[in-house]
């Protein structure tokens, strides 16, 4: 029973990591750079979620599902716009610069977004009272009872649905095909009539949208947001992306879920103090034996 409860905890946490990790991995796949500002994009999504839910209350929308749908769609739309703008301002001008330049520019964006939100929203924590309460209780009430809250269920279901959708999207649609082509060889894709700039923009829009989704769900689940949450979440999601194989979308999903499970189980059976040690220890072990991560591809460099 205890093990099952910890699996639920781990899956919930892992779903969040996975949603954010996809943004890292997609950008890395196409541009070969790590977008360090991605954690901040997630943070902006979380803020927008709380703000929209608050505004919905002001405008008299009391139905929780409606407010939630509104929050998710608005947060995803606005955050995607942030992602698109960020790419145009910080990365597009550096498309042909040495690889270090966009990396520095990404760190700059990250610092900018943190301070931007701190000035706009204040340095205090923003709290959201629990919107969706209750859950399922499984097992004997006298013994150890498993609790599976509705928010946790929502988080896991949304993640699974979105991931399945994204996989189909990348596999089946024209845009997805263009993304895969750009990822393999940007120059060749351009020769074949794909506009790489547009494809890159689309990548940023999708990645940011998913981060925003994670942000809204997180503020719903934990009820606490501040301007610095993006840093830690970003590091964890980046770890998840590397664990699964950076550049690979299924890898990011697997990496995220795995990282969440490792943290929960390490905390459950060893000590909470060292859960990060376990997580990073396993990451190191995986990278020793599979340097490209669990599902990363191994392109042969042509000489």
């Amino acid at each position, binding site marked *: 029973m*205890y093990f099952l*409860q*910890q699996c639920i*905890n*781990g899956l*919930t*946490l892992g779903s969040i990591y996975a949603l954010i990790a996809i943004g890292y991995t997609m950008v890395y796949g196409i541009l070969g750079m790590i977008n360090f500002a991605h954690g901040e994009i997630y943070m902006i999504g979380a803020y927008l979620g709380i703000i929209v839910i608050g505004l919905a209350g002001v405008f008299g929308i009391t139905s929780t599902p409606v407010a939630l749908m509104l929050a998710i769609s608005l947060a995803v739309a606005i955050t995607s716009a942030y992602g698109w703008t960020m790419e145009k301002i910080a990365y597009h001008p550096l498309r042909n610069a040495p690889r270090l330049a966009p990396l520095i520019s990404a760190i700059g964006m990250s610092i900018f977004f943190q301070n931007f939100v*701190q000035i706009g929203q*204040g*340095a*205090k*924590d923003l*709290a959201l*009272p*629990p919107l969706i309460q209750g*859950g399922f*209780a499984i097992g004997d009430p006298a013994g*150890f*009872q498993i*609790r599976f*809250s509705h928010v946790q269920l929502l988080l896991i279901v949304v993640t699974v649905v979105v991931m399945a959708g994204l996989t189909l999207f990348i596999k089946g649609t024209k845009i997805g095909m263009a993304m895969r082509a750009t990822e393999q060889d940007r120059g060749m894709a351009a020769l074949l009539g794909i506009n790489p700039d547009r494809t890159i923009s689309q990548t940023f829009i999708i990645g940011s949208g998913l981060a925003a989704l994670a942000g809204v769900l*997180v503020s719903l689940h*934990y*009820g*606490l947001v*501040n301007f*610095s*949450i993006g*840093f*830690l979440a970003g590091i964890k999601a980046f770890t998840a992306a590397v664990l699964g194989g950076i550049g690979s979308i299924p890898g990011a999903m697997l990496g995220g879920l795995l990282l969440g499970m490792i*943290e*929960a*189980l390490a*905390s*459950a059976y060893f*000590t*909470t*103090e060292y*859960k*990060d040690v376990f997580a990073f220890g396993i990451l190191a072990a995986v990278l020793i034996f599979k340097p490209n991560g669990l599902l990363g591809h191994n392109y042969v460099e042509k000489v």
Partner: protein
Amino acid sequence: MTILKALFNLFSVLLIIGFCQQPAIAKEVIKIALAGPLTGSYAQFGAQLEKGARLAVKHLNQKGGIMGKQVELIPGDDACDPKQARAVANNLVNQNVVAVIGHFCSSSTIPASEVYAEEQILQITPASTNPKVTERNINTLLRTCGRDDQQGAAAAEYIARKLKAKRVAIIHDKTTYGQGLADEARKSLRSLGIQEALYEGISIGDKDYSALVSKIKKADVELIYFGGLHAEAALIVRQTRDQGVKALFMSGDGIVDKAFADVAGTASEGVLMTFQADPRKTPAAQEVVNEFKQKEQYDPEGYTLVSYATVQVLAETYNKINSTNSIKAAQYMKSHVFDTVIGVIRFDAKGDLSTSPYVIYRWHNGTYAEITN
């Protein structure tokens, strides 16, 4: 070219004026620094300290200031980060402050105090409760709050004698303050015959404590004692109730801000807390409390009035000894009694308050009150 040159000349002239301006207009003021987390997750506490000190300085200046000079309050933001605390301390030293009120987090107060001690700048912390703060033979460092060995003992006493709880989980946030307090509580609990059922540390900044909460649930405890600050405490208590754990939750002065209940929501109901006897209730504080409530629409909760009182102690000392010499001032403070908004204050030779100020509070309806019985 000539335009550029003219611009350059104009710029140089402005620069010179800029340099001259400072000493020309600067009046003789006494600078007192206020250092604490003005931004970050614990900005609420920084605001408590700053609001209290600011109003105290305003009242002080209306009454003539210190030795006939006006007092200026210089804020310093450490964000509860030990590295930033040291940088802020150096910055404040360079601004020639005569005394520092702060910091908030013990993990900031301790590294910063080394800087102040070296420069012989008087430091009074209104809120850092870790015993080590005053145990390092710095004779220009005092505090107007209690110590965690007193606080941990008060909590353990209540758990063992009043609640008669047998199974206790102790959780801390691995900071100087949080772990220090948890360890003191553990020591006192053990001496009262209660062996903790669980002892774990969490990471600050995490949002998900569900794995730990499940562990607590499995340990089947009657009470969870938490050493840490309100952001983490609120998340833990909320996730505890989400998982159907009914154990009592108890923490220290790190959760004494209504922001705790904002995040914890209904889970804050019945949470226990140790803090000094409510400063808002003392007769001497009524005028200040009313001014806060009416003019600033602010409830001077937590450490606000303690910070106010700290300014009072400083001003009275400087005015009596007619100097801002830190060593003399500290000596004066340790040998005299002060009548402040939080009541009568007396320091011992180490710079601590001479009596333990802790009482037990209970959270109810999003706010906290002393348990009277």
